[in-house]
């Protein structure tokens, strides 16, 4: 029991130092621009199909599920605004971040874990290349910038899904549909929702890197690193979301 508590505090301390190192090294040259762009391509571009499918289904299902209730109150015309608001403020950021946790965080955890186990990270270290700068800084930065873009993309595709959902039971002009959405949205709906996606991205990247970078020796630890990265990143997304909603509620 005491050992478990001690291990928990040790892990918290190590994680803090790992995160602190990021803020120290991100400003120190050499800047690994090529690797950063490569990671943006892998994390951002290669996640587009998955995010598109999920976003479309989110919008479609949300519309179909909400419609009967709104029809009962004769408020069917509120449907575009309600769907867009739900998607932009909550559903698209959280669901996209969870998908990224599953795809990106586990991928980074497994990749770095495998590099650690096969001494590739040590090989970088002994050849006087800073593995943290090359592997961690680039991936965390790419995640921090790409996840918000993926969320914007999911918002847009989700809204198209909502339009398709509305047109299953009726006939709404796309221009009118968009006008209703724009009228129901405010600047303050977008700002907190966008800000929290940067935190989602940062933690998705950081947790994947931490778990992979600290994989203990042995192939079993690669699987553990990937698994642990997904679980921790998913949990952290919900915690960040809860904190973000509380802060938004307080100030906006």
């Amino acid at each position: 029991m005491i050992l478990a508590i001690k291990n928990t505090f040790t892990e918290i301390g190590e994680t803090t130092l790992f995160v602190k190192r990021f803020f120290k090294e991100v400003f120190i040259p050499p800047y690994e621009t090529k690797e950063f762009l490569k990671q943006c391509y892998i994390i951002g571009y290669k996640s587009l199909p998955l995010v598109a499918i999920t976003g479309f289904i989110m919008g479609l299902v949300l519309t179909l599920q909400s419609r009967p209730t709104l029809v009962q109150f004769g408020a069917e015309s509120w449907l575009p605004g309600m769907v867009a608001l739900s998607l932009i403020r909550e559903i698209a950021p959280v669901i996209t971040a969870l998908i990224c946790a599953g795809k990106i965080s586990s991928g980074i955890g497994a990749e770095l874990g495998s590099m650690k186990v096969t001494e590739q990270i040590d090989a970088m270290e002994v050849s006087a290349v800073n593995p943290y700068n090359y592997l961690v800084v680039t991936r965390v930065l790419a995640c921090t910038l790409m996840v918000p873009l993926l969320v914007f993309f999911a918002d847009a595709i989700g809204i198209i899904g909502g339009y398709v959902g509305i047109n299953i039971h009726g006939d709404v002009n796309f221009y009118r549909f968009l006008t209703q959405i724009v009228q129901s949205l405010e600047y303050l709906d977008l700002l907190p929702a966008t800000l929290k996606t940067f935190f989602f991205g940062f933690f998705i990247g950081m947790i994947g890197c931490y778990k992979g970078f600290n994989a203990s020796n042995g192939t079993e630890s690669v699987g553990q690193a990937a698994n642990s990265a997904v679980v921790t990143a998913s949990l952290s997304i919900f915690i960040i979301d809860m904190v973000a909603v509380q802060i938004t509620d307080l100030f906006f």
Partner: protein
Amino acid sequence: MMEKKLHKEPKAKEKDQTPIIEIKDLHKTFGKDNVILKGVNLTLNKGEDLVVLGRSGSGKSVTIKCIVGLIEPDKGEIKVFDENVLNISKSQLNEIRVRIGFLFQSGALYDSMSVRENLAFTLTKHKRDLSPEEVEREVMEALENVGLAEAVDKMPSELSGGMRKRIGLARTLILKPEIILYDEPTTGLDTITSREISELILDIKHKQKTSSIIITHDMACAKMTADRIVVLKDGVIHAEGTYEELEKDEDEWVRSFFE
């Protein structure tokens, strides 16, 4: 292809006795009571090939990982090129690391990169002003030194165990190190490939005038490459001498390595 002619250098006693690595009273314990090193004292002289023998888990790899700063010892002193690597800054340590090559047991090639990228990666990180043509020339030269120029476009997954080690060595050589640390260079290889790697170690020593510490269990490799051999036992250096001397050592345990 690799030059087959061997260039066996004179034995240690006839050579330059300038120490380039000096390890004094090195201690390392993992966890609470897993004592690995209990006061290792070791010297590598310039131009010398030093073979380290010992049973598995005796601390051979730990010792050379301490030299390059991969493992931090609990106590002791490690001087490389007259600098105590345990008391210097990270940037100073990196300057020394560039002058030391390290061949990992598995080769430790970067899986996501081709052979060309593996070699160019290390080079371009240290010589950022090199043109692509110069990088290509240096990569091909390093690969030709290990006899694997034709593997330049292959991925590590397409290489055999022996090829991985040679490419690992080429990646080490591309920075033209003065010292090379070999961590079990022939482990897991067949007899013929092991001999080729041992010949390569000698060839590199002749061409690049390197000094080496070679950790091995392969006595054929030790016989071919060693100017001097040290034997690790119970966390300290138990015996030291040339291959011929230790082969006839009065300690039966030492002799058992040579049987």
